[in-house]
């Protein structure tokens, strides 16, 4: 029976300098997968944060199964059957996977004594359901990002919720893991659970959802039945303009080697990694999650130590022990996780953007704030960062806009070699295209770029050559123009 599981009526929410939600209506039926799409700053995460109790709406009403609720906190939401699986991981690293899954609902034997046996059993059952094959006793911080994402989903399931919100669940998943997830979603749908699915991957919308709601600038543009629309139409409605897809057509012919890595070995994360990157090239690092690409890059950037092997930069061997040394040599790095590794939450956009160049814009030790404003405003315009002022706190920006600020930070720092680790994670289709154009533009201007991405299509679009890694080993280095997505997957798993 199709009944309105959830009704959100005229929801409004504002932050200092930004009206994030304007009279938004949204509904969800039992046994429905409802996709929620939109560009950065469109309001998708904000709407879901209101529904899950992380934020308080300014006005509007929320009805769950016909009953009006004032959702005052996340625990209230969970107790009223609304389970949120956030975009950024909320895992307690020091405890076990089972405990993470059952956090808040651990059954007790007597009084306040926890029933560990039941906890582990329950966790194992949920993990089976999710196709997550691992030891429930394993400490969370030792698990991969993909595994932890499954644990997050498991936690929502442990509460037995009727509404599950998945906020960009597939961004760190491999193809296989994504299929597992979709299986679980379909199962939940059969169990009459309502699923709200926020994603930037419009192809996923087509694959898994029944209806799709498109948001733009804090408003609900339209809600459509997925089978009545197309990917192209959805994207057009998201941006309000026709989409232009860029195509890779560069023939890179450089020969000068900028970075050379020889037989780099790490104690646990990778073995015998050798490759070289030519000046002016865009070098992609492909691989499934956990392949060891970020770890190799961290060694080059001085954030971890290799056991053996050598690194050559601009012809001479270098020994890089701290990120500062790497940056001084001319290597920049855009981190994989912006919340924990990229942004300074207490500081403004301006300060976040200019942090690495403070010495450069200081005269006699005093920072030139006018210069800071000028530089920041330039990027706000050119990268279309959605904000009313460069003085706003960076934490008030949407995830994608935060990413743009961190990207801008490194463009401004102007290092010879720039390493981008998952640069378009959590960024909408149009902005993703803009960033790809930007990467190509930077390469045209002579900058050398290494791009790590779990999205092979992205690498095929922007990179000249692609190195494929799997479980710490280099599986192959290919020319981007000569391979297909399946080829790369095949090489990785060979």
């Amino acid at each position, binding site marked *: 029976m199709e009944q309105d599981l959830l009704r959100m009526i005229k929801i409004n929410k504002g932050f200092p300098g930004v009206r994030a939600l304007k009279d938004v209506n949204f509904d969800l039926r039992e046994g429905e997968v409802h996709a929620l799409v939109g560009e950065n700053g469109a309001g998708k995460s904000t709407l879901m944060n209101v529904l899950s109790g992380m934020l308080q709406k300014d006005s509007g009403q929320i009805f769950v199964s016909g009953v009006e609720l004032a959702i005052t906190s996340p625990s209230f939401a969970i107790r009223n059957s609304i389970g949120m699986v956030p975009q950024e991981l909320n895992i307690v690293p020091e405890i076990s996977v089972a405990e993470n899954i059952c956090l808040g609902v651990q059954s007790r034997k007597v009084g306040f004594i926890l029933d560990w046996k039941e906890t582990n059993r329950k966790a194992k059952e949920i993990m089976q359901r999710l196709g997550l094959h691992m030891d429930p006793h394993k400490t969370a911080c030792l698990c991969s990002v993909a595994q932890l994402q499954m644990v997050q989903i498991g936690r929502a399931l442990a509460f037995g919720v009727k509404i599950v919100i998945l906020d960009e669940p597939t961004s760190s998943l491999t193809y296989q893991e994504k299929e597992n997830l979709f299986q679980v979603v379909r199962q939940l749908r059969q169990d009459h659970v309502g699923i709200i699915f926020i994603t930037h991957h419009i192809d996923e919308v087509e694959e898994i959802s029944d209806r799709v709601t498109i948001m733009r600038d804090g408003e609900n543009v339209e809600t459509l039945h997925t089978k009545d629309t197309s990917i192209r139409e959805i994207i057009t409605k998201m941006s309000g303009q026709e989409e232009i897809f860029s195509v890779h057509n560069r023939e890179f012919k450089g020969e000068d080697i900028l970075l050379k890595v020889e037989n780099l070995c790490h104690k646990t994360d990778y073995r015998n990694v050798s490759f070289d990157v030519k000046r002016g090239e865009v070098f992609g690092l492909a691989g499934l999650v956990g392949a060891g690409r970020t770890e190799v890059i961290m060694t080059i950037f001085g954030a971890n130590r290799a056991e053996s092997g050598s690194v050559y930069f601009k012809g001479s061997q270098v020994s890089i022990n701290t990120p500062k040394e790497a940056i001084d040599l001319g290597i920049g790095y855009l981190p994989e996780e912006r919340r924990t590794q990229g942004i*300074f939450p207490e500081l403004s956009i301006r*300060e976040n953007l200019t942090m690495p160049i403070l010495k450069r814009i200081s005269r006699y*030790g005093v920072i030139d704030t006018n210069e800071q404003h000028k530089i920041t405003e330039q990027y706000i315009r050119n990268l279309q960062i959605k904000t009313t002022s460069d003085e706003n706190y960076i934490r008030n920006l949407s995830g994608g806009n935060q990413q743009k600020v961190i990207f801008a930070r490194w463009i401004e720092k102007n290092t010879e070699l720039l390493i981008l680790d998952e640069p378009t994670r959590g960024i909408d289709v149009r902005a993703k295209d803009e960033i790809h154009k930007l990467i190509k533009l930077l390469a045209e201007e002579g900058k050398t770029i290494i791009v790590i991405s779990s999205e092979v299509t992205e690498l095929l679009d922007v990179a000249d050559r692609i190195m494929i890694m799997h479980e710490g080993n280099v599986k192959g280095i290919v020319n981007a123009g000569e391979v297909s997505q399946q080829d790369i997957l095949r090489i990785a798993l060979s």
Partner: protein
Amino acid sequence: MKQASNTAKANTLSLAKKVFGRTEVVIFVATIVIMVVSSFFNSAVFSQYNLSTMIKQMSFITIVAFGQTLVLILGDIDLSVGSVAAMAAIFSAKIMTQTSIPPYIVFALGLLLGALCGLFSGFFITQFRITPFIITLGASQIFTGILNVVTEGRTIQGMPESFTILGQGSLGGILPYPAIFMLVLGAAIFFVLKHTAFGRHLYAIGGNEIAAKLVGISVKKCRMTVFMLSGIFAALAGMLITARLGTAQPTIGSTWVMPTVTAAVLGGTSMTGGRGGVVGTIVGALLTITISNAIVTMRISTYWEQIVIGMVVITAVLIDALRTRKSGIAT
């Protein structure tokens, strides 16, 4: 015409919100309120004598609090400030009374000793990544122990006048030298924190240490420098109060640690790092002194002082936490 006046009204309102939204202003207003209230009980509150006594009293702790503020911005804490102050006090006093080395050189040596004590803690914290709480606690015990061995609990007397003038004299008869030290130092730290790369790096480290490292900031160097500065400031305060009292006791600074943290936190410095500043610390110290002063002038038993200060700190931290929560948890 009406539109213009409405916009003007809206502008004033938002300006007022901005001004009163700042912790420093709220605390300052609270200070004035307490002074006004206590002046009803005792009209001497606003007398020059009382005001100058308050300024003199607060100077010493505020100087140390500046150092503590820097440490707190990093997200650390320095529990050794009291004992470092005593170290500088005792050793400078000993040298001055037992040798003929001119006081200004001894003063410099005292500051150097403070720097070394700070570097001692800083070394263990940065090289071995042990929490500052434990290291500075341990250092504090070591320093106090050294002092007890050296002085055997006895007071050192007979400081030369060229030294005591620093603590007892004043500029033009009105502004006491310790207050001048406080204001000059405060201005310098304010400037560094707001307008120099080093200052902004401290906020970066306190706000997100990993991101700071990945952006090329020398976290170790900054941390060492900050603990060194904390030691220097503590040493300065220790010597100044010795100069004021004319004697050096090994118990100097033993009650200084908590008030320095209190002053900073009251003024808006976060204990988790990334937020805080000089103005807030001065205002926080002002409030603390005003409360102590009010208790005396209203002839309340001094035993109440601790209770009141404790309640004030909890209230301040609550307000701060509520403010952080309200500013939203957007992605």
